[in-house]
């Protein structure tokens, strides 16, 4: 698996491809990117792995660290757990069973749908919401980028997060424990691989906040496995009966799907990281009334719009609809087991005060004061030419000591002009020995 680092995050920069343009710095919701020496630099502790920069980069210089497909050969017994968003990727798939059969044929011993585990999480969420009226509204933890966003920018909402394991984690735990018990295979020989639409999920496995160690052994992106499944699909003559999830589970791939599964009208579903920020602001201001549940997804359109998917999100939605209709006729969701306490997180998320200017309050006040003064003096164009996303961010970088005022090209030009004026003035002044026009006594 990938390297261990203090602040692990999956989104990385491809130095070769980066042109040092300002597209990514402007879109980053946590102002985590600066351009330095002609390359974009990600400030690790601020990155929430939303993947917004991957999407916006015209040079494809942002990538997500996931595992290569051949990681599966490291384990004796191989299980694949695909995210529901996989169903929206294939044009000619007749049924989910076809996709799952083709996926399994790549070299897995078993398939277990994360959509099935999503239904278990739905049941647990229902119980949690009906049991407690003290927290309102609850915020889903399904999207790890949103959880991390709350940690960094909305700490007062940490208590509102539903601390239930993600469907991915539940799926991995269920299959591992069952295989260990039924087939008598030790857990370390079982490899469970998540097929992921996004970078944030890779981070969840490498640096989980809900538990000490994830039950998932590898994360493969939909992009990386797409062609293998596509090639296999044509060869599937008689698909295996592999689908277990009902429409409630597979709908999770869509924005609003998790909410609909809860069977309540008192929900609000928001997608796209910048829209999510607006809604979180509203919740912080106590403006959201009569809502018990907030489904917030970082990607536009939900997981189907993930940066590591292949198909356009709207096309994928139409494709998924077919499978939702098929699932409606079958209706598996009834046979689900109820929520159990084991789904609660054993770990917790803490406030990450990465925006703080200084550990010491008095020093932070001082820095803020200087920051405001500098900011007032900057042009306010937010052009990004200094490498920071806005004038205020540059002012912040200056007080943090990582930038100087003349990084602003307008400030620099002002300085150059002042200098030119001074030079012109000096040019007119002649030393007395050369100055023929100088009058006596002057």
């Amino acid at each position, binding site marked *: 698996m990938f390297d261990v680092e203090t602040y692990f995050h999956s989104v990385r920069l491809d130095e070769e491809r980066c042109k040092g343009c300002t597209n990514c710095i402007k879109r980053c919701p946590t102002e985590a990117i600066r351009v330095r020496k002609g390359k974009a630099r990600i400030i690790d502790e601020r990155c929430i792995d939303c993947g917004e920069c991957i999407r916006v980069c015209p040079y494809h210089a942002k990538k997500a660290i996931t595992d290569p497909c051949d990681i599966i050969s490291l384990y004796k017994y191989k299980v694949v757990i695909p995210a529901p968003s996989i169903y929206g990727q294939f044009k000619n798939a007749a049924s989910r069973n076809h996709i799952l059969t083709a996926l399994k044929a790549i070299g897995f011993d078993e398939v277990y749908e994360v959509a099935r585990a999503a239904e278990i999480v739905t049941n647990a969420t229902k119980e949690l919401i009906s049991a407690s009226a003290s927290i309102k509204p609850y915020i889903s933890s399904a999207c790890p980028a949103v959880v991390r966003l709350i940690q960094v*920018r909305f*700490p*007062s909402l*940490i208590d509102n997060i539903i601390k239930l394991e993600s469907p991915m984690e539940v799926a991995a735990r269920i299959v591992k424990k069952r295989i260990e018990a039924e087939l008598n295979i030790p857990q370390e020989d079982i490899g469970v691989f998540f097929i992921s639409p996004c970078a944030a999920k890779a981070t969840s496995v490498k640096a989980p906040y809900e538990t000490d160690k994830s039950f998932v052994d590898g994360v493969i992106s939909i992009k990386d496995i797409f062609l293998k499944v596509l090639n296999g699909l044509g060869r599937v003559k008689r698909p295996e009966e592999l689908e277990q999830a009902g429409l409630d589970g597979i709908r999770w791939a869509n924005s609003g799907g998790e909410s609909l599964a809860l069977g309540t009208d008192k929900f609000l579903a928001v997608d796209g990281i910048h829209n999510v920020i607006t809604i979180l*602001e509203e919740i*912080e*201001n*106590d*403006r959201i*009334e009569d809502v018990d549940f907030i489904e917030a997804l970082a990607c536009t359109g939900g997981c189907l719009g993930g940066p590591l998917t292949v198909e356009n999100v709207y096309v994928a939605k139409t494709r998924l609809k077919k499978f939702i209709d098929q699932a409606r006729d079958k209706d598996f969701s009834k046979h689900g087991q109820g929520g159990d306490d084991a789904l609660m997180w054993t770990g917790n998320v803490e*406030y990450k*005060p990465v*925006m*703080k*200017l*200084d*550990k010491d*309050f*008095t020093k*932070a*006040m*001082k820095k*803020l*004061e200087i*920051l*405001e*003064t500098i900011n007032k003096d900057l042009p306010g164009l937010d052009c990004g030419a200094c490498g920071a996303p806005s004038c205020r961010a540059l002012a*912040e970088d200056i007080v943090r000591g990582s930038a100087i005022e003349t990084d602003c090209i307008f400030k620099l030009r002002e300085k150059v002009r002042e200098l030119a004026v001074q030079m012109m003035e000096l040019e007119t002044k002649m030393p007395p020995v050369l100055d023929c026009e100088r009058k006596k006594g002057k």
Partner: protein
Amino acid sequence: MSDGIIRLKFDILPNDMSAAGEASSGVKKVLNQLGVEPQKIKKAAIAMYEAEINAVIHGGGGIAEVVIDKEYIEVKIRDEGPGIADIELAMQEGYSTASDEIREMGFGAGMGLPNMKRYSDKLVIESEVGKGTTVTIVVNL
């Protein structure tokens, strides 16, 4: 400057509900950078937001002046609107003089002043009919 106190000033535009909340949002960002406890940021932000909304709805806009000291944050929101005739009555939950249009937008439920009181450690309302209203909110840090 340099007396260790931070002063911020924001304009509150009249009749622009979509821009309402920008000032409190800006203050929130600043408090975050200072590393103020999240729950206290929330208190200050909600109280200020309510006052800001009031200035937009009733006061015809105004200005917000924010002072941040080591021990407290003080938000003063001033408008030159119609003023409040009976402050005690206005403080009651559910009492509102907002128009139907405003209510249709989901505002004007008569919770503004009560909310401000709930979320602030000190609330002072000075108002003169025909002249305007000044709301001072203090949240201890």
